[in-house]
């Protein structure tokens, strides 16, 4: 039924064109710009419905494929297609963008149409990253994506936004250069920019190792992995709420997606050779960053650090697979680790997005993010407190919330790789609960701490809707994650079978 409709192009170009339209709409019609932002993001959401319904969950093959020659001289094509991995991330992007648009509804007071345009264009570009099957096309979307985010933080950000934006841009751009080098090298080997063609390309071990490092430099910054993570807390602190939401929910997933789409399938032997490094960095992220989060006094910084720790689980889940396959001789345990990683990506999108929205709600009212400026918020904002309790618990991976699913599966499977990986990873049970609940206690509970808190108004309809939508997702996929696993299952299992085989010539 949808076979002939270029749905992927639609989910990419609808928001981009909508964004361009918003730019031309100008600043006079503030309300129109907002409405345009909302309507276009909702339409994109609606376009995802046939994408999900039409998606065949029994195959790992790329679906909704679109192909058109682009630069024929170099055999670069406009080649789109999605598997279960990309589909989930596109759905997450479409969902989150609506929230980000709504988050800026009242808080953004100047250049509203540009603000909306930035988010819409960003959405299209991010969808492009997830749908590209041509590595140059991927790279174009990948780099283009930086620009709107750069502007979002740089224009609507906080007082130190210049330092934060430059840091953000340099970090990610520097990493990406190596990605381009790797893509070009592969082109000269394979004669093609087709990502799927690169999967079958035999590559020597040394070349694989070098390629892995090049990919790693690009993707590790985005995840971000320790020690290239320090741009993230700064970027989050300065970004407006919507920017933080997109940054945490989607942009951090780009790096992890890169590992799935490039590093693991194209250079499996290189990945295996460096899995000790990846596992170490992941465990450092989980524990080191957990401790760092404990002592933050800025709420956004705390959540930013918590994001890094949670993304550590994603990379851990991805890179323990080689050891599990070695230990058990099957991909069964590895499937849990990798699917857990992808689940963690999706869930972290909801939870960190929601927590940034919560901070945004408070920031809009009191214009401070310092934990010590709050206290007793529950007295004046009981509904808000209830929502934030749910998200805090989800952040602490309470069973019944989506945050539990991925971490649980990854802890289970890391035990199969090495008992001590599991022991170290499980420390998050204590650390995650400690920093999240300690913050919650200081901000929300207690007697009213200041006049500002005394005057707080509880969340309005718009905010209730935004937080409620995420709350539903967090609970639904916590209680019943099966639909997500059904979508990702064949793709992940195929990926695992692929990387279990050596590609060395």
């Amino acid at each position, binding site marked *: 039924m949808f076979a002939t409709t270029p749905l992927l192009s639609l989910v990419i170009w609808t928001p981009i064109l909508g964004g361009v339209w918003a730019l031309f709409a100008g600043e006079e019609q503030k309300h129109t710009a907002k409405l345009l932002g909302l309507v276009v993001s909702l339409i994109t959401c609606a376009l995802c419905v046939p994408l999900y319904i039409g998606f065949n969950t029994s195959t790992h093959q790329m679906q909704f494929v679109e192909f058109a020659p682009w630069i024929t001289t170099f055999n670069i094509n406009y080649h789109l297609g999605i598997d279960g991995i990309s589909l989930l991330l596109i759905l997450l992007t479409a969902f989150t963008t609506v929230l980000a648009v709504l988050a800026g509804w009242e808080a953004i007071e100047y250049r509203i149409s540009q603000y909306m345009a930035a988010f819409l264009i960003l959405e299209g570009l991010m969808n492009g990253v997830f749908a590209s099957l041509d590595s140059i096309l991927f790279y174009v979307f990948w780099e283009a994506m930086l620009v709107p985010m750069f502007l979002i933080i740089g224009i609507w950000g906080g007082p130190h936004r210049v330092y934060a934006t430059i840091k953000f841009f340099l970090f990610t751009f520097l990493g990406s250069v190596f990605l381009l080098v790797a893509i070009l090298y592969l082109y000269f080997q394979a004669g093609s920019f087709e990502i799927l063609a690169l999967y079958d390309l035999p590559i020597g071990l040394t070349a694989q190792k070098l390629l892995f490092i090049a990919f790693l430099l690009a993707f590790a910054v985005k995840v971000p992995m320790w020690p290239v993570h320090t741009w993230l807390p700064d970027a989050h602190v300065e970004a407006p709420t919507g920017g933080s939401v997109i940054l945490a929910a989607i942009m951090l997933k780009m790096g992890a997606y890169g590992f799935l789409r490039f590093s693991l399938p194209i250079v499996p032997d290189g990945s295996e050779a460096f899995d000790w490094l990846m596992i170490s960095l992941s465990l450092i992220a989980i524990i080191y960053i957990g401790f760092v989060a404990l*002592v933050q006094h800025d709420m956004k910084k705390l959540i930013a650090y918590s994001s890094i720790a949670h993304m550590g689980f994603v990379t851990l889940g991805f890179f323990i697979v080689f050891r599990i396959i070695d230990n058990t001789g099957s991909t*069964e345990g590895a499937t849990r680790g990798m699917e857990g990683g992808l689940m963690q990506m999706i869930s972290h999108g909801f939870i960190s997005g929601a927590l940034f929205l919560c901070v945004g709600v408070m920031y809009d009212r009191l214009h401070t993010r310092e934990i010590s400026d709050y206290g007793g918020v529950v007295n004046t904002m009981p509904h808000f407190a209830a929502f934030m309790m749910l998200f805090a618990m989800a952040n602490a991976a*309470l069973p019944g919330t989506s945050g*539990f699913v991925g971490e*649980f599966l990854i802890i*289970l499977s890391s035990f199969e790789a090495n*008992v001590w990986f599991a022991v170290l990873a499980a420390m998050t049970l*204590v650390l995650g609960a400690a920093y999240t609940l300690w913050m919650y206690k200081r901000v929300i509970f207690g007697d009213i701490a200041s006049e500002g808190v005394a005057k707080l108004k509880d969340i309005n309809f718009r905010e209730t809707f935004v937080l409620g939508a995420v709350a539903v997702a967090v609970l639904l996929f916590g209680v019943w994650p099966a639909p997500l696993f059904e979508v990702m*299952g064949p793709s992940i*299992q195929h990926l695992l079978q692929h990387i279990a085989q050596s590609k060395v010539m």
Partner: protein
Amino acid sequence: MADYMRYVYLGVVLAPLLASIIAGLFGRSIGRAGAHWVTIIGVGIAFILSSVAFNYIVFDGGEVFNGAVYTWLVSGDTRLVIGFLIDRLSVTMMVVVSFVSWVIHIYTIGYMHDDPGYQRFFSYTALFTFFMLILVMANNFLQLLFGWEGVGLVSYLLIGFWFKRESANQASVKAFLANRIGDFGFVLGIAAIMTYFHTLDYAQVFQQAPLMANTTIELLRGTAWPLMTVICVLLFIGAMGKSAQVPLHVWLPDSMEGPTPISALIHAATMVTAGIFMVARMSPLYELSATALSLVLVVGAIGAFFIGVLGVVQHDIKRVIAYSTISQLGYMAAALGASAFSAGIFHLVTHAFFKALLFLAAGSIIIAMHHEQDMRKMGGLGKYMPITWITMVIGGLALSGVPGTAGFFSKDAIIDAVGHSNLPGAGFAHVALLVGVFVTALYTFRLIFLVFHGPERFGAEVRKHVHESQAVVIVPLIVLAIPSLMLGAILVGPMLYEGHFGHALLVLPQYDVLAQMGEDYHGPWALVLHGLIGLPFIFALLGFGVAWYCYIKRPDIPKRAAERAQIIYNVLVHKYGFDEFYESFFAGGARGVGNLFWRVGDVALIDGLAVNGSARAVGWFSSIVRTIQSGFLYHYAFAMIIGLLLLLAIFVHGIL
């Protein structure tokens, strides 16, 4: 199997869940009465349906139900489900949990009467009942963990129910974190099971377990650890958190910050016994590891005696009972360690009734005293509150194990079972449990004497208002007092010796202490007669005597004793220093490490040195290079000549 039973089981969990959602989300529109009605009905339905299930499984000999409700997720070939295992163990727990919960819901109407968070409270307690039922009805480890953490969540929410109090908020976070430390072990235990059994389903794990009895696991290179011991110890770490076993017990006394009804429901009768239930449920695993059994036995005995002693120096009425709870949980754990699983569960059941009774009676006193909990400001209340007094004495007798009461049958069985055990540590445990009886009677009657007898130590203002509590408070006391007296005699035969639990609990013949005891079993009345001349009762009488002498006859003695044995008294008042140690070492240490990583690692090294440092280096380098670009022609000409000379020199000498 009767087909409709499936719906009965579903109804057991769904009724309280639905009630909780209604009371929680629509609390404002249904009002206070609406909230308590809907939750009381919801939990009441759960109780009735649990009774139906109990009747079906136990009396009608119905089939054990072991099936999935829905698929949680499928990953590869692994299917993780939400499902129920309804056997003789779970129906017993279901009835106890739903009944105690139901009684406490009714009591709460009176206790929380004037509280602004009335609806919220009922929503939480119904939600708790849901999670607790999920926990006991689970047929797999995943769902066990669901219920396990779910009850922990509600416990956290209810300890911090009065969120304006800093002490309550501290206590709630402390409880959650102490439980999380336990869960750290618990989750790793589950991971070990998944790794070696490739399933989380109880039945499959239990079936494969004997084949794994000799499997070892390499924790450190070149060392072989018995797998079963590793799994059982890890799981028991979870139980240590949830069931407040030493050294993770520290959260339970602080949990008394919560309203009294939940102290009775969650922190005495049900949630804290989850660890005991879990170990009993895992009996097919624990039986394969003598080491783990020994550990459970010794840890339990340590708690039973040493933490019980702390109850003697507490002044807060609820804290006395809290320490008593830790001590009684120690008794239960000791029973499990001795492989007397059914004795552990039996004590769990009787304890649920008499300890809930003690807490609710304490609550009745606290209402009368206008939320004063310090026993030093009470005294002589017996004549004002006769029913509270009598019911509390009944609870106290049961707790002390006076022959004939419910507590007698279960506690004596435990002491006897541990006496029969041959595991390492059983000798120590037996002595600790016996002396523990003395301690139990001492703090129990100290409490009763301080509160109900002796001179009145409160002001005239309080005296004017002191009166017996209202019916919704009193009736639950009476309802709980009856089983506290009678239940032991009724259950002792079936539960311990006549196979009430059927195949739900597994005991290997070489550990079967209850079978040995069963040879001498001649009915409950013979037990009572035997108990009257038994060692535990003598210890209990001693405890009673000391309490009477010190708190009625010579009330000056406790103070003098405290002064004489200052060191011991200080150790007890500081609760052996656990709290101080945890606060400074773990909490302080974690913050210290956090600050170190952040300020030195992130800010100074990564950002300061590497990131901004390289930015500065680039800046410095370009500032140097910039000076060369002077714009003067002769500078450039000079540079060109020097360069040319250099190149010539290189070529001439053939360096390249």
